[in-house]
């Protein structure tokens, strides 16, 4: 009640910051070379994917190791519909991609999210691997040789498409989870499911809703990615690395925070590209991801964002490193 006036200067600073960021993001392509622009486009995509994973993994507290399945569903839907025998235009394919991913999420989300903790993680992983194996043996997905899409070589187009998709995801999540009833439901579910039930929250429904939302966003980025890279195969859009990165980005940035995934996604993607340009491949990236997860779990369970936005978190970090709680 009394805290409202205190917020005002903070609010002004925050709006200014956000305004500056929006201008910077919109103007960015004019200022950088095409190679850097591709990196920026990728960073936007990963930020958006991290945001999507965070809905289920961070807010609902269900660690999913199967999100590559939804990325792949999006990518394959777009790729298949854009083959010359169907010939759909790119934007037309987005809707079926999103609908299909949500349908799959609802179908598997109901039974899978009855499983808790590790069981859920295993089940989603098994599901994603199953789907990966399935697209490698099916004909209409091109099997192991994958699919080519009509090439559209306009980096500006993809940058702005990713920007819009990513911004929409973050704003959507912010409104839905930090500014509406749904946020209380999903966080209550994460912290204590029986207690949430006992307060009248229909946890099974909330779980499926959050899973479907998360799947839809993931599939959206899968669709854009497929059109962007013009060629997909099972491992490039459904391989375990997709999920691995989403998980690490969110953990690093801050599980269950709005902006943490953006921070983690952008930072890690830039690291990835830097390693790629320095070493010629990204093999060393994987062990680095592994070390980051372990260190974050041990010393910074609230993620990097907690150092920036949290209260007294820095002190907590130091005490955690020094004195083991």
């Amino acid at each position, binding site marked *: 009640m009394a805290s409202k006036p205190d917020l005002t200067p903070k609010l002004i600073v925050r709006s200014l910051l956000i305004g500056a960021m929006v201008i910077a993001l919109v103007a960015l392509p004019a200022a950088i070379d095409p190679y850097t622009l591709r990196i920026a486009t990728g960073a936007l995509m990963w930020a958006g994917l991290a945001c999507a994973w965070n809905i289920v993994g961070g807010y609902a507290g269900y660690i999913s190791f199967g999100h590559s399945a939804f990325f792949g569903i999006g990518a394959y839907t777009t790729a298949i519909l854009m083959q010359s025998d169907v010939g759909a235009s790119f934007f037309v394919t987005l809707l079926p991609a999103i609908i299909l991913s949500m349908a799959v999420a609802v179908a598997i989300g109901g039974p*899978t999210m009855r*499983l808790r903790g590790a*069981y859920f993680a*295993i089940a989603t992983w098994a*599901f994603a691997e199953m789907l990966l194996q399935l697209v490698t043996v099916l004909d209409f997905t091109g099997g192991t040789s994958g699919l080519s899409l009509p090439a559209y070589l306009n980096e500006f187009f993809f940058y702005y498409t990713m920007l819009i998709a990513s911004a929409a995801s973050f704003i959507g999540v912010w409104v839905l989870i930090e500014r509406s009833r749904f946020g209380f439901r999903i966080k209550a579910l994460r912290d204590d499911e029986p207690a949430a039930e006992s307060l009248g929250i229909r946890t099974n429904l909330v779980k499926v809703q959050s899973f479907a939302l998360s799947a839809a966003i993931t599939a959206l980025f899968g669709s854009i990615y497929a059109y962007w890279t013009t060629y997909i195969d099972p491992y490039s859009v459904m391989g375990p690395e997709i999920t691995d990165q989403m998980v690490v980005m969110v953990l690093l940035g801050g599980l269950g925070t709005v902006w943490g995934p953006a921070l983690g996604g952008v930072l890690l993607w830039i690291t990835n590209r830097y390693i790629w340009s320095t070493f010629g491949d990204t093999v060393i990236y994987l062990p680095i991801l592994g070390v980051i*997860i372990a260190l*974050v*779990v*041990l010393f910074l369970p609230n993620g990097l964002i907690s150092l920036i936005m949290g209260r007294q978190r820095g002190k907590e970090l130091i005490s955690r490193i020094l004195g083991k709680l």
Partner: protein
Amino acid sequence: MDLFLQTLVNGILIGGILICLTIGFQLTFGVLHVIDFAVGGWTMLGGYTAYWLVTLAGIDPFISIFLVFALFLLIGRGLGPLIYHVRTSRYARPDLMALAFTFGIFLFMRGGALWLWSYNSRSVESVLSGQFLSLGPVTIPLMRLSAFVMALLFSLGLFILLYRSRFGMAVRALAQNHDHAGLMGVDVKRVSAWVYGIYTALTASAGVLIATVYSVNPSVGIRYTLFAFFVAVLAGLGSVGGVLVAGLALGLLEAYVATYIGARYSLLIVFGTLYLTLLVAPKGVLGRGI
């Protein structure tokens, strides 16, 4: 009919190795309540260690397996307290944090192996390689048979340790109840660390056998993590006894699918079955507890 028998034998032989692969994993879950994603990573590292021992020092995998066991016992014992710390931390949802932690370790192993040793598959040669035993219509590669026997001996060793020693009693007490075991004078942290060590040692040893029978490359880790999950889920997480049946079941399933449906479908069917088993009977089909 001959093909059927041959497949049966193949399935049983691989099933034996899968038992050894999963039995320590189950023990870890029973005692530490940690699902270790790195189980396939330990398998892979065991395989690589055997590969380097035979390549550089000429030590046959059936001898080096004991070195691998000792080495990974120490590595696991060293890592154990860290796992215990994460699992018992005050932090909200320590179970998920522990999951993420072992996931990180796994990623580190997988990526590290890829970085150091690249994508190539490497086969581990033994003096038994290429030798066969014929029993009527069934041909048994001697190596698979020896690997099977070895895997069962290791698993048997664990059972003897669990049910015939003081340490085993402490472990079983821990699996029943942390607090009570602690009150009865069990050093929970130390025993947990040793359990983790035993688990990594057993799993790495299974990895040696798997690398000897097939081959090893950085991506086998994921496959064996999922296989271990499969066996564990079928047996009921934490159930050590159930693994005996569930391991054989997976071995047979994989062998029959590969023979009669096609090898490229075997993973699809294994993962599909795993997923459905989780949905239908998440607590396992074969009972629970140690």
